[in-house]
């Protein structure tokens, strides 16, 4: 049996006294796209932040349980920066750092110690192409990333997340600010990237999970309601009636 890329075991998370993830366990296989769907406040983003250990950055959070990447307990990893570089993260609201477009994409490689100019430029171009942004910005790589439109900034963050060649790519509702045509282009890129990396796709567009993910997880109030082949969740007979209601838009 292949070691799962990510193993989450009995993960609990609380902000202060309020528990937001109530002991969930699941595995993510290498080179799969796992879709995670669920309403707001169900713990999807928190889950991603636990995986790349940026949760520690928020004061007052308490986490228990184990998360393993390639079988190794992330909590025991000493090089937390190395771990974060193995995981690409695209946040739901586009956060272009207040740097030039070029510097945004070159941020992580530089932080990791890459200094060769031609290597960097080639990498920046490759990532911007993958994020379907190259043609729009190739003439103004020096202008501020924060001056791009919302959709462009979102693609910039995707390019940035790809810049450190992550093994795991976490996309947190990446298509909120992107038009449908560009979304489809990026979805095609994701299908390509699947060969090289494992993708966790948190999305509010349930149809997006259906298009891309082999398996889908439905989270609600910090619990996993159902995790299984996407077809099962979207079919006529998911295991839980709430799943059926949610994906068909007749919730609550």
């Amino acid at each position: 049996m292949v070691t799962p890329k990510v193993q989450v075991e009995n993960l609990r998370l609380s902000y202060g006294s309020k528990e937001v993830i109530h002991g969930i366990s699941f595995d993510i296989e290498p080179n799969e796209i796992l879709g995670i769907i669920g309403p707001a406040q169900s713990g999807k983003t928190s889950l991603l932040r636990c995986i790349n250990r940026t949760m520690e950055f928020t004061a007052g959070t308490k986490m228990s349980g184990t998360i393993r990447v390639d079988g190794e307990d992330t909590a025991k990893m000493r090089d937390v920066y190395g771990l974060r570089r193995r995981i690409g993260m695209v946040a739901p609201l586009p956060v272009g750092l207040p740097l030039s477009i070029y510097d945004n994409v070159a941020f992580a490689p530089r932080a990791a110690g890459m200094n060769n100019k031609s290597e960097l430029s080639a990498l920046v171009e490759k990532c911007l192409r993958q994020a379907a942004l190259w043609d729009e910005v190739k003439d103004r790589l020096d202008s501020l990333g924060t001056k791009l439109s919302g959709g462009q900034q979102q693609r910039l963050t995707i390019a940035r997340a790809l810049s450190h060649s992550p093994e795991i790519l976490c996309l947190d509702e990446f298509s909120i600010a992107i038009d449908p045509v560009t979304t489809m282009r990026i979805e095609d890129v994701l299908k390509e990237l699947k060969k090289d990396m494992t993708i966790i796709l948190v999305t509010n567009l349930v149809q997006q999970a259906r298009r891309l993910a082999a398996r889908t997880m439905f989270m609600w109030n910090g619990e996993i309601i159902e995790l299984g082949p996407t077809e099962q969740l979207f079919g006529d007979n998911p295991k839980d009636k709430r799943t059926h209601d949610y994906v068909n838009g007749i919730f609550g």
Partner: protein
Amino acid sequence: MTSSRSALSIYGEKAIEWLIRICGVSAIIFVFAIFFFVFREGAPFLADEKFSLWKFLTSTEWYPTSMSNIRYGTFALIAGTLSVTGVAMLIAVPFGLGAAIFVSEFCTGKLREFLKVIIELLAAIPSIVWGFIGLTVMNPVIQTVFHVQVGLNVLNAAILLALMSIPVMVSIGEDALKAVPDSYREAAIALGATRWQLIWRALLPAAKNGLLAAVLLGVGRAVGETMAVLMATGHAVNVPHSIFDSVRTLTATIAAELGEASEGSPHYRVLFLIGILLFTITFIVNLVADFVVKGIKNK
């Protein structure tokens, strides 16, 4: 629905609008009024045949009350002000910005609150008290540590000025860093940045305008400070060759001599010209900073 507003509320709104407009314009009026006043007192002397602007700016000889040969050269005073301010900034900028980064990014909870209170306390010390410290504490310390004859010199005043401008820099700088959205920090951290890389490559670029404003306020404080430097520089008209030389600043000269100059006399007018000079220096500093900020923005 009858939603036509009463005449009273419309006039009320107009009145408030005007009030706010007056508040905004008043700043301009005050600046121009001060400028006008200083100019009116100083400018007539510019036309005096005994006065040479070139000598005023470049001569090091300041003998405003000489019996035989009166000379008004302010170069030594300008050098005094610039040297004291420059050395003060060399000390204050790294310390001030470092402290701002520490308070904003590394401190949490009690330590943070404690530090902020202490720093605000530092800002509240009157400048005469600083001058007193310079005269009675720093003077002997500098004499013994550096083995120099006079402890009242550029270094002494610069250290005092640095300590006076650091609190301003820390509180403004900390505000600037706090104003950087947490999402930037999150994004940089998620890209594998270490704490140092986060600060150097993401936070400082994001907060640079605010940090520059913090430094400028510090410079402004240092250029304009009078009492402490009057007491700590040694008050000797002298172009300094090292930080252990005594100097005299523009501000201290005005403070020390204006009381003795009879109103309307050439000496009196020259002191006002020094005021205009100070005005010009701070104006240039602000202008340069403005250009720097704009340059960064347009990049």
